[in-house]
């Protein structure tokens, strides 16, 4: 089983000096935080805010290469989250065949946003995610932490 997730926000985690990408399902029942590095957060934030950089950033290039050969990103699935190793699959359609490519969730999400492709999470990932840590986070959150990324 997979659940479609929507990007809810991107916030800075000063304790780990990292960023958290927050995904939420349609009903708001499931919340999935993904810790990413600064560069990865930048790549996601640019797509979220629809910022057109003067030069193509790495994920824009990724999309250009796929576009050059008419390969389409159909969907992205977050398949596993361990302590330091996160897994995602990018599903591509190319010449009537489907291909699945292994990726980090941060790359997968940055690309999905640029290709307007849906992002899903495996149910096992959602179940595995202990909500404790996130709840602690949300308690400490100030509204401005979500900033303009909150939809």
């Amino acid at each position: 089983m997979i659940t479609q997730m929507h990007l809810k926000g991107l916030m800075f985690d000063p304790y780990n000096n990292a960023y958290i990408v927050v995904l939420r399902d349609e009903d708001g029942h499931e919340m999935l935080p993904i810790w990413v590095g600064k560069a990865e957060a930048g790549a996601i934030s640019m797509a979220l805010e629809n910022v057109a950089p003067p030069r193509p950033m790495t994920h824009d290039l990724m999309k250009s290469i796929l576009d050059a050969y008419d390969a389409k990103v159909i969907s992205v699935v977050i398949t596993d989250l361990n302590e330091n190793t996160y897994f995602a699959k990018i599903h591509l359609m190319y010449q009537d065949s489907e291909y699945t490519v292994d990726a980090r969730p941060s790359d997968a999400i940055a690309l999905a946003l640029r290709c307007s492709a849906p992002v899903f999470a495996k149910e096992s990932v959602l179940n595995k995610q202990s909500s404790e840590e996130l709840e602690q986070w949300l308690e400490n959150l100030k509204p401005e932490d979500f900033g303009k990324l909150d939809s």
Partner: protein
Amino acid sequence: MSQPNPASQPRLIEYAVDRVLDETNTDTKILVLARRDGHPDSFPIWIGAAEGHAIKLALDTTLTPRPMSHDLIKGFMEHLNVSVRRIVIADVKNSTYYATIYLENNGVERTVDARPSDAVSLALRTRAPLYVTEDVLARRNTSNLESWLAKQDVRTSSKQQEVRES
């Protein structure tokens, strides 16, 4: 690897990645390219810290537990049977270099515009040759590198600091 036709294409000089230098005062790195024909000319390009890190990983053939962004691009190309034929630093405008990535799939060539840092990262991972056009070589401004290197010579010999990111 077929050479581009000199009649229709600008003359190309082949380069290799020499090293990535740290610029400690700012959040940038300097990618230094060296000529493959032994000519003692180096070609510096100022790039972002994350971009420099991606190039260093490829230069040092560091294995990361998960595919980094350029490994993912390489992964896509392997699935689509697309190869990188060459990358060319083909233009410079207002001190910004422009690279073109030449791709090929079943005889169909496509070109994609890229930042030199992404193009070089990809070239290292796909072992594609890297060129700079003579026109760009003639039009670049090296004076700032010469002075920068003169100041930094002592320090660059000491161990280089790694950038940390996920």
